[in-house]
């Protein structure tokens, strides 16, 4: 039987989704459900003086209003690890006091029998405030910038090697420019949504989240109840892109209201509310200085980023992180600074750091190439990092040069003219641009449970979730190979917090993290089955050794004589077993230094850990020596644009992304992820941006008519290619993550192509017609 991994199978949940049968968080039919509508602050900073709900409470069907005056007290959550529950705004647990830190902050929840009644009532609530002067605008407050102690997930935020200042002095060629990126919003199709239901002291929550386990942990901690009493479901998620990685107030407000009014409560944020109370990608100001010799070899790189965060938590957009490893340079200085503003707290957005960071760095590289009168591709090759120079480690696998080569071929790089503005097609100027894509390959500890049924079907349970990326599908393939079954015999179940703890959907880590334990658990079941047959005198395989026996398409047989064997069902039926189970936990983390932390004694993970000690697949996987390797994916992005120079209109003619992401598990879902990332990049480059009022600091453009994302007509032919070379060090499956790398580099490639077409270097995103005709 051919392996299922690598086959471009259709999405296993495709039909459910297109027929509307897939249940998203807000779609569970719950008896006696009532509807919450959030009332949000209309000032930017201050205190709520009074909430007059007299008119609102008279609306038929209204059950009540929850404000800081009558809401339950929450406990402060201890941790900040998203996989155990990270609240996005640690100093702003909802409705705990009257303070307002930003416009659009939740200040009350109206609950009514119907959504319409709640909406009507919400509009009748009159709020008065004590308004205070707010801190508005990153530029105006630049003097308050401070250096954060650490970056995302405790990672480094200030990185140095060598001596940049001295190296710059002797650099033959230098570029120094500042690049700015605006605030971007994720705008997942599905807004943040929660249904909460209490049955006695047991809480069930249906949530739009990238981490069912995180929500469970966080709810237990903040509500002060045992984790066993919390059940979280996220069966289908309509996109997250990072916005549902941390937990936002809606997830707490629904259970708070449900408790208060003693009814199950549904709370869905409006699109407008998502723009202020559910994260964003921060604005960045990035100054990049490059020093090189006459041949283009870099001697010094300096990347200083200033971004914004809120007054209620700290989030660092680590734009310079990729800069520390992308090119070879003996001297480097990467720094990050933050300015606190009265805005909601930013959070990860698809390739947090890398997306804006590779924009700035890769445009700077293009500028350097131009100054050197050198082909920008050549400049990349000259400065290729053969090893991770900051950590001084080998890359587990890197085929970037092949990405460049294939991408250049596919876009027709040889047609590019070095001199900007010299190539024409009709009214249009033609330009070519390229950039390097990169994203770290992450993997974290995960657990899964595998079950084989007597009828020959199998099941996987794993407490991770599919945020729309295809996790159900690729994990079905992984499990099918582990069980040696065809994928249609395997059911993968995710998005349930009572399943064994799987990875949070963030950092492109899900496939690399949950794939190995799913595979190991399935292999573990088959191993148990083989051993049952061996010790069963009625089995044709009785008395053989496990190594002599193979599994294939629902049957176990002798390796040397495939005719001698029997089906899984035959073994199990004879044994009177209706199911056979195994659990596996792989304690591998690419980020954690030192040995993995063991699961708490008595926890389900501890049991899986124990069982994994005799699981060969886990043992081999954990034995792999990873400490000398750096794990990163790479890619090359190539773009051809057409620009109407008079009207400033930009048409992307073609984009090519060639990705080096390890094993391609499923060409369809993989292409889909990369393509989606590249389209995100078109949005970043050409139109997306969130505007705040310059006078009061509140979001002005807060719906999809004002916040433009690309439409079909903006999207050209997209070619996605993969190197498809397994990374044997990351896992036995060989796949690094794929969700985020597609958005990296692409924005710079577009900007560089526009420069090549027009000779105009726009260093402030997005590149809109006004900036090109200026």
């Amino acid at each position, binding site marked *: 039987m051919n392996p299922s991994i690598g086959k471009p199978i259709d999405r296993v949940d495709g039909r459910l989704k297109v027929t509307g049968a897939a249940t998203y968080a807000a779609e569970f039919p719950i008896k006696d459900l009532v509807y919450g509508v959030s009332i949000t602050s209309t000032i930017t900073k201050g205190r709520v003086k009074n909430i007059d709900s007299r008119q609102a409470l008279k609306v038929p069907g209204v059950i009540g209003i929850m404000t800081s005056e009558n809401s339950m007290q929450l406990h402060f959550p201890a941790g900040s690890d998203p996989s155990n529950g990270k609240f996005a705004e640690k100093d702003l647990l909802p409705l705990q006091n009257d303070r307002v830190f930003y416009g659009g902050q939740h200040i009350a929840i109206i609950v009514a029998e119907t959504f319409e009644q709640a909406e009507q009532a919400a509009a009748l609530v009159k709020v008065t405030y004590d308004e205070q002067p707010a801190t508005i605008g990153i530029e105006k407050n630049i003097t308050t910038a401070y250096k954060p102690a650490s970056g995302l997930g405790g990672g480094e935020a200030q990185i140095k090697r060598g001596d940049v200042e001295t190296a710059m002095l002797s650099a033959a060629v230098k570029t120094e420019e500042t690049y700015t990126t605006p605030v971007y919003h994720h705008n997942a199709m599905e807004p943040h949504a929660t249904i909460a239901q209490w049955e006695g002291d047991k809480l069930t929550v249906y949530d739009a989240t990238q981490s069912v386990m995180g929500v469970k942990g966080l709810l237990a901690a903040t509500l002060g109840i045992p984790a066993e009493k919390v059940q979280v479901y996220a069966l289908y998620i309509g996109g997250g892109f990072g916005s549902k990685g941390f937990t936002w107030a809606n997830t707490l407000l629904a259970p708070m209201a449900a408790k208060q009014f003693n009814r199950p409560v549904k709370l869905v944020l409006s699109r407008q509310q998502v723009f202020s109370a559910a994260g964003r990608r921060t604005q960045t100001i990035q100054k990049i200085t490059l020093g090189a010799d006459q041949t283009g070899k870099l001697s010094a790189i300096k990347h200083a980023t200033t971004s914004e965060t809120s007054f209620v938590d700290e989030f660092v957009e680590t734009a310079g992180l990729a800069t520390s490893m992308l090119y070879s340079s003996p001297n480097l200085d990467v720094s990050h600074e933050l300015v606190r503003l009265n805005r909601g707290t930013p959070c990860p957005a698809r390739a947090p750091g890398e997306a804006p960071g590779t924009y700035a760095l890769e445009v700077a590289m293009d500028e350097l190439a131009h100054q050197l009168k050198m082909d920008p591709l050549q400049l990349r090759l000259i400065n290729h990092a053969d090893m991770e120079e900051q950590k001084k480690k080998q890359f587990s696998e890197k085929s970037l040069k092949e990405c460049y080569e294939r991408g250049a071929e596919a876009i027709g790089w040889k047609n590019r003219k070095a001199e900007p503005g010299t190539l024409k097609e009709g009214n249009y100027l033609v330009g070519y641009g390229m950039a390097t894509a990169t994203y770290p390959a992450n993997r974290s500890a995960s657990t899964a449970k595998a079950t084989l049924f007597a009828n020959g079907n199998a099941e996987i349970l794993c407490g991770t979730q599919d945020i729309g990326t295809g996790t159900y599908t690729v994990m079905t393939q992984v499990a099918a190979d582990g069980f040696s079954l065809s994928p249609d015999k395997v059911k993968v179940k995710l998005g349930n917090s009572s399943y064994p703890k799987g990875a949070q959907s963030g950092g492109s880590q899900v496939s690399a993290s949950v794939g190995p334990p799913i595979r190991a658990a399935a292999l573990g079941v088959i191993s148990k089955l083989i051993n049952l047959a061996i010790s069963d005198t009625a089995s044709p395989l009785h008395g053989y050794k496990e190594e002599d026996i193979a599994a294939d398409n629902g049957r176990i047989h002798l390796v040397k004589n495939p005719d001698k064997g029997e089906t899984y069902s035959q073994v199990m039926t004879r044994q009177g077993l209706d199911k056979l189970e195994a659990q596996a936990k792989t304690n591998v983390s690419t980020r954690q230094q030192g040995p993995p932390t063991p699961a708490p004694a008595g926890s389900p993970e501890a049991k899986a850990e124990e069982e994994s000690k005799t699981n060969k697949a886990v043992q081999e996987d954990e034995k792999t020596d990873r400490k000398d390797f750096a794990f990163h994916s790479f890619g090359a992005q190539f773009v051809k644009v057409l620009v109407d120079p008079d009207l400033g209109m930009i048409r992307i003619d073609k984009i090519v992304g060639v990705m080096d992401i390890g094993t391609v598990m499923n060409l369809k879902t993989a292409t889909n992820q990369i393509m989606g990332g590249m389209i995100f990049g078109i949005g970043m480059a*050409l139109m997306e941006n969130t*505007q705040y009022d310059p*006078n009061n600091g509140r979001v*002005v453009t807060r719906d999809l008519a*004002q916040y*433009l994302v690309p439409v079909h007509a903006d999207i050209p032919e997209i070619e996605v290619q993969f190197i498809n070379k397994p990374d044997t060090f990351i896992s036995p499956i060989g796949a690094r993550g794929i969700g985020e790398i597609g958005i990296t580099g692409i924005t710079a490639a577009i900007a560089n192509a526009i420069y090549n077409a027009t000779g105009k270097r726009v260093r402030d995103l997005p590149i809109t017609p006004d900036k090109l005709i200026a």
Partner: protein
Amino acid sequence: MEPFKLIRVQDGQSAINATLTAGSKFIAGGTNMLDLMKLNIETPKQVIDINKLSLYQIEELPNGGIKIGALVKNSDLAYHPAIAKKYPVLSEALLSGASPQLRNMASVGGNLMQRTRCPYFYNADFVCNKRVPGSGCGAIAGYNRNNAILGTSAQCIATHPSDMCVAMAALGAIIHVQGVKGVKTIPFSEFHLLPGQTPHLEHNLRQGELITHVEIPPIAYAARSHYLKVRDRASYEFALTSAAVILDIQNGRILKSHIALGGIGTKPWRADLAEKVLNGAIANQQTYRAAAEAALSQAKGYKDNSFKIELAKRTLVRALTTTGGIS
């Protein structure tokens, strides 16, 4: 949304009678009205569904003009053979607007009556004279990249967002109205109002008046016409700038021109100053640029939208060049 009563009427007279109930509003395709109701910007007590009225005809008139029922869908109008042939400018304008799904719902009457897309108007957390008269204008000192540069006042700088209306302004359409006092017609140039001191008043319809038809006068040379729209994305977005151009050119000389601009005016902007330059002049780049300069001579840019002045000129020059060629 506020609760409201929905009534469905079968004919024009019942529609008009129904408006005697205070707080009544018509609804046609609902593509603008419903959004505004959901955001509590429109809070009608009674919504009168006029979709059963027989106002779906596109009629070619003996004089060569065309009479369009107010309920004709934007897509049906755009693809009507007579419109596509005689008035390409109108067809192109319609097809540059919104998306296919919206055009299939949007009616001609509703398009004429659609309200601005100024983000402050849509956002109840901000002041807006158009939404709440006298509250102030959020956009003038705020974020105003998409706002108007012509016809603005100290009270309001919101654009009229329609594409169709720009073509109709150029064509000099006539709006047929039925009211309590009978029927009347309103010339296009008098239909929409400048904001002045009263930005909440946007048109010349009185309470209870129903648009029944729009008449396009016969313009023999309108087959030589064009609509050009510049925007931030390739489709499904309102204009930064746009131009509707109709030219009667003989032997390289412009005999008559009809010019209107979109994306820049507080109402669909008939550019008579440009027409004065064009009429009688030789069709060449110099003339076109001079016309564009004249069209924008009174423009006033704000913090984020001054670029529109030059962009609008270039848009008009390009539209003129495409339509008139260069002799």
